[in-house]
């Protein structure tokens, strides 16, 4: 009797999991393995071109300082964007979770998720219109302010950060919101009744309890930003060369897929190492 129950359980688990894992295998694992295979070839294996197995694509990363420099630049960008998104997103999530109820919360949530509903290229190009000298932002400021200001953020690092923060902000708001909502209000009331001030409550209760959500959001932002290429290219101009744009060049302009694939896997490895090194520290912070 218990045997059949266990079997039924197994069948249930299997049938529920298999669609997702089948999809992951077909849509992610197979193309990724193909790219991994490409990264060990000397040339694109199309047509009659000669090719052989080699690790020269990985060696190329170490032969010049260019790639390492760009990777460092990309990691810095990732930290900067993640930091800004957390600073902007966490207070917003707190207010949504704890202070606002009912209809207005739904409306505010809609505004948060709105960026997800528009095409990312459209978002970036609208930022280009806003940030450009003589653009929407400058005209708006000059009509409000009594003195003339010259806002030309286009083609600069701040422009890239603004565009990326806007694109990825919903992640940190949504994950923090879920964690913040799970905090029992009685805990906060208890702390207040014992005489804790607002900063102590934030630091000792709210932040530690919502940290898992906050960190999940931060990781969700950091990883894609390190590999981003479209936003830096369009908003960054001369300073918009990052590790991601170099990978894109290999695929689109230079047609050196093996090198592009190798650089992508180096990026993946570095990101995984960063997360692995950071995870014990982060786990300790949570307890």
């Amino acid at each position, binding site marked *: 009797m218990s045997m059949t129950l266990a079997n039924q359980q197994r069948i249930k688990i299997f049938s529920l999991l298999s669609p997702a894992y089948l999809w992951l295998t077909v849509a992610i694992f197979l193309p990724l393995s193909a790219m991994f295979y490409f990264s060990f070839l000397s040339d*694109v294996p*199309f*047509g*009659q*071109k000669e090719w052989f197995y080699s690790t020269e694509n990985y060696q190329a990363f170490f032969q*010049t300082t*260019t*790639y390492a*420099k*760009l990777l460092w*630049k990309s990691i810095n960008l990732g930290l900067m964007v993640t930091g800004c998104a957390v600073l902007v997103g966490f207070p917003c999530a707190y207010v949504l979770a704890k202070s606002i109820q009912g209809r207005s919360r739904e409306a505010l949530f809609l505004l948060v998720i709105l960026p997800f509903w528009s095409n990312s290229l459209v978002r970036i190009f609208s930022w280009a219109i806003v940030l*450009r*000298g*003589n653009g929407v932002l400058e005209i708006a400021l000059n009509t409000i302010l009594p003195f003339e200001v010259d806002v030309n953020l*286009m*083609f600069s690092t701040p422009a890239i950060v603004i565009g990326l923060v806007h694109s990825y902000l919903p992640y940190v708001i949504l994950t923090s919101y879920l964690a913040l909502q799970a905090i029992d209000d009685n805990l906060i009331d208890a702390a207040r009744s014992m005489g804790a001030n607002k900063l102590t409550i934030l630091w000792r209760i709210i932040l530690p309890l919502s940290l898992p959500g906050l960190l999940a959001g931060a990781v969700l932002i950091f990883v894609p930003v390190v590999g981003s290429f479209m936003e830096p290219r369009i908003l*960054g*101009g*001369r*300073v*918009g*060369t990052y590790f991601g744009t*170099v990978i894109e*060049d290999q695929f*689109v*302009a*230079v*047609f050196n897929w093996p090198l592009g694939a190798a650089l992508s896997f180096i990026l993946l490895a570095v990101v995984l190492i960063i997360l692995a090194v950071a995870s014990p520290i982060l786990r300790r912070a949570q307890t």
Partner: protein
Amino acid sequence: MMKPFFLSTAAAVAIVGSAASADEIRVLNWQGYGTDLDWSVASFAESSGHTVIHEYFNSEQEMLTKLRTNPGAYDVVLINAAFTPQAQSEGLIGPIDVSMVGNLADVPANMAENVDLNAGGSLHGVPWTWGLTSFAVNTNEFKELPTSIEVFWDGDYAGKVSIRDDALEAVQFAAIATGQDINDIKDLDAVKAKLTALMPQIKTYWGSENDWNQFMAAGDLEVATFWSGSASRSMAAGLPVQFIVPQEGAIGWLDGLSIPTSSTKKDAAHAFINWMIDPEFYVKWAADGAPASANSKAAAALPDDAFNKRVLGDAEVVARVQFQRPVSTENREAYLALWQELKAAQ
């Protein structure tokens, strides 16, 4: 008397039309680059009976990859002369049957006998169009048009300068600025130093003609490298720009139309190429902005104020042009490394 004559010619045309089987040819080209104009394809279909279908590429490497991976899929392909020898040596394209392209008689010898188009000892690409990579300036910002390439390094235009995000173009541009032969750069260090000095002047790189027009119209740029064909289109569209061929010279390119070895419709392909270098086609195309034609009769048929006659028809200008030759893999890689290093340092 006229009517029977007309009818009989129409009948004759119909017979010839049906005798030569109506084929569907596939053309591989950059998008929006002459071969895919609706009126031209319609007029070719009417006169020859052949229909034309297009497929596009975004870089020369992509074009070569498509030829390698899809044998038999294309009947006409546009190949820049600097890539014709590579395509020929890989056996991707076959020789042109000169007798089937009547308009070749009007292509001057300096184009028709181009070393690269005649890779392998015979004509493998019919000279179609040529043009320059030089630069254009915003005429609202320049009282007097510059005559020297040194305007790119002029501090007055700091932050208003752009070049294309392309390693080869950047290096050859700097080679011209340092007085070198673009096809045989002896002093790459001088090129690097010149580009390093240029970088702080640059506002952004441009990638496409559309980018360029937007940046120029928004006032982001005042001086930027540009292609002659694109410049003629931008000027025709009303942008306040002027194309400059500086005293130091300019980069020249020559595009040819080739027929893949694997094509099964070579007759129709030859007929289409002949139509592409026909003066009738070119004059109409030039009205909405085309590069210079390789056919001298077509060039002569342009109105006197046409960009391609006024700027590129000047023999003194043509004498300053250095035409691009094939670039070896080693050089290409060296240029790419140099360009990436400079970009990464920003």
